[in-house]
């Protein structure tokens, strides 16, 4: 027995000569059935380095029965011919899978891209229905322009609307109030009820409210937008990060704008991040100056 053991090549465990079986013989694979119907197979093998590896596999066996036309089955066994003669089984590079198309026949189908939008349109319609329509004048359940009290109740909303006297002329209309829409005349945006162009700004007024935007200077060249975003996210939700990049080299130019959803967050961030060390430079954070009209 001892001789047989010594002749096995690659052995390094001669110290365990007393129990040779353990060292050189791999245990048999063991299959156990689990409670949920799967099987666990534990097997051993030697990998390329000669080390013993234990492999545990959880296997579920399912039998799928499919009926097939015998002629079709026979054709599947045919050897591929022509340019496909020596190619392996399975679709080659002449076959690709396209994008998923939702095809649902429907009565009264209308072409023109409407069908593709259907699920989104439905969502929009649902949102519209759920939306509470409230009139600004009398808080009723209708749109402002349809308000029955346009004439009487519009008056207290005057504001900067004195200029309304300019529309459509006639001093008698002054009393109608700042809206001017009561007379049916057009009121330009900047003269309407409320502040200058509120809610009319391009991009929506919540996008880049300058009072919630911080200007960060002395930013390291190696900084990236994602880094800045992560840093400033700690103080509140960041809606936009704009990192000034040099067009040619792509490196940071040294400053950035960070916009918050909430003004208070911006204020807090301003205090906290001013003087923060990033890279090898110290950041300077201040509120961004309002964009000047150019």
């Amino acid at each position, binding site marked *: 027995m001892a001789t047989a053991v010594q002749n096995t090549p690659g052995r390094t465990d001669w110290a365990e000569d007393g129990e040779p079986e353990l060292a050189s013989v791999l245990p048999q694979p063991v299959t156990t059935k689990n409670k949920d119907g799967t099987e666990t197979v534990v097997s051993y093998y030697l990998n390329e380095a000669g080390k013993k590896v234990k492999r545990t596999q959880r296997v579920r066996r399912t039998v799928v029965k499919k009926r097939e*036309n015998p*002629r*079709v089955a026979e*054709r*599947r066994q*045919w050897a*591929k*011919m*022509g*340019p*496909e*003669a020596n190619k392996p*089984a*399975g*679709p*080659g590079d*002449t*076959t*690709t*899978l*396209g*994008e*998923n*198309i939702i*095809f*649902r*026949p*429907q*009565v*009264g*189908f209308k*072409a023109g*891209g409407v*069908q593709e939008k259907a699920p989104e349109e439905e969502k929009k319609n649902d949102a519209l229905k759920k939306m509470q329509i409230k009139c600004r004048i009398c808080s009723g359940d209708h749109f402002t322009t349809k308000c029955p009290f346009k004439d009487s109740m519009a008056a207290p909303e005057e504001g900067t609307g004195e200029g309304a006297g300019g529309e459509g002329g006639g001093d008698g209309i002054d009393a109608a109030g700042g809206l001017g829409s009561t007379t049916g005349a057009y009121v330009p945006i900047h003269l309407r009820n409320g502040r200058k162009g509120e809610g009319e700004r391009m991009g929506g007024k919540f996008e880049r409210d300058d009072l919630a935007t911080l200007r960060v200077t002395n930013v390291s060249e190696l900084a990236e937008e994602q880094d800045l975003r992560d840093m400033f996210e700690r103080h509140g939700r960041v809606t936009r990060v704009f990192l000034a990049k040099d067009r040619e080299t792509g490196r940071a130019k040294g400053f950035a704008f960070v916009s918050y959803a909430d003004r208070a967050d911006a204020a807090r961030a301003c205090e906290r991040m001013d003087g923060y060390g990033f890279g090898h430079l110290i950041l300077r954070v201040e509120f961004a100056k309002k964009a000047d009209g150019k």
Partner: protein
Amino acid sequence: MRPILLSGHERALTQVKFSKEGDLIFSVSKDHVVCAWYSANGERFGAYKGHQGALWTVDVDPTTTLLATGGADNTMRLWEVRTGKLLKTWDYATSVKRVEFSEDGRQLLAVTEKRTGQLSTVYIYDISPDPSEPAPSEHALRIVVDEQPRVTVAGFSYLNHFIIMGHEDGSVSQWDAKSGEHIKDNYSHEDGMQVSDLQWSADRTYFLTASKDKTAKLHDTATLEVLKTYTADTPLNSAAICPDPQQYVILGGGQAAMDVTTTSQRQGKFEARFYHKVFEEEIGRVRGHFGPLNSVAVDPTGKCYCSGGEDGYVRVHHFDPPYFDFQFEVEREARAESRI
């Protein structure tokens, strides 16, 4: 459903055909190549090389042993599907625009083009389904169409009684398949708008013609009367009837110069249109091709359909459950009543 794109051709597709069991698709194109594909996964089975010109047409016999192709090199060729061996070549004076096997696979017809000095002719051959037996060089019947405008498409009717032809001026005609006698015509499509495709129902008692006049019409084989008309907004190149129990037809066409719209550029804009066969109403469209659809074919078992386009792609679509469940209200009621 996710379409499988088959890109084995370098030029526009001219015809696609399913085998009788629906497991193989044969496609021919202007690039001289015939390809065979498995419809289940789009795997290419092989290609048949030998033609020297653009291929216009292909058909496979009901046992899927023989394949016939016709092309612009003025030949019709017979191949063995399994090995790709060329069994027979027939030479003509002009290009072959259409080939079709009869229902039992015992006869094969070829439609040759009309040229100066040559009239449109339809040749019929008796074919034996055994590939080892040589096919005849002599035609069993030849129909020379001289009084009528050029023949664009033709096919065998049920029981090989008639040969139905479609013409360049939009008419369809009926001929006796044994004697070659002209029986009747019907000027069903708009004058001057050629019949671009003719496809049969499963039992060949009615057929669907597609025409450049933007309509497809369902005709009765025996009387040639128009049973149904399906109107589209583009000239049609092909039309197919879905097998029962689905009551649909598929139309394919398209004009190359389309208006630019703001649709996704990853998907092409050319569509296959689905109509209800009985109600003549459009029920859906499937887009994806980057060029007009030149040919549409439906799997005889009804599980999938494929379309070959001018863009060189064949798109195979396996239908989802909603396709099989769709019914009009009246159909649902009728079915409920018949059960009671």
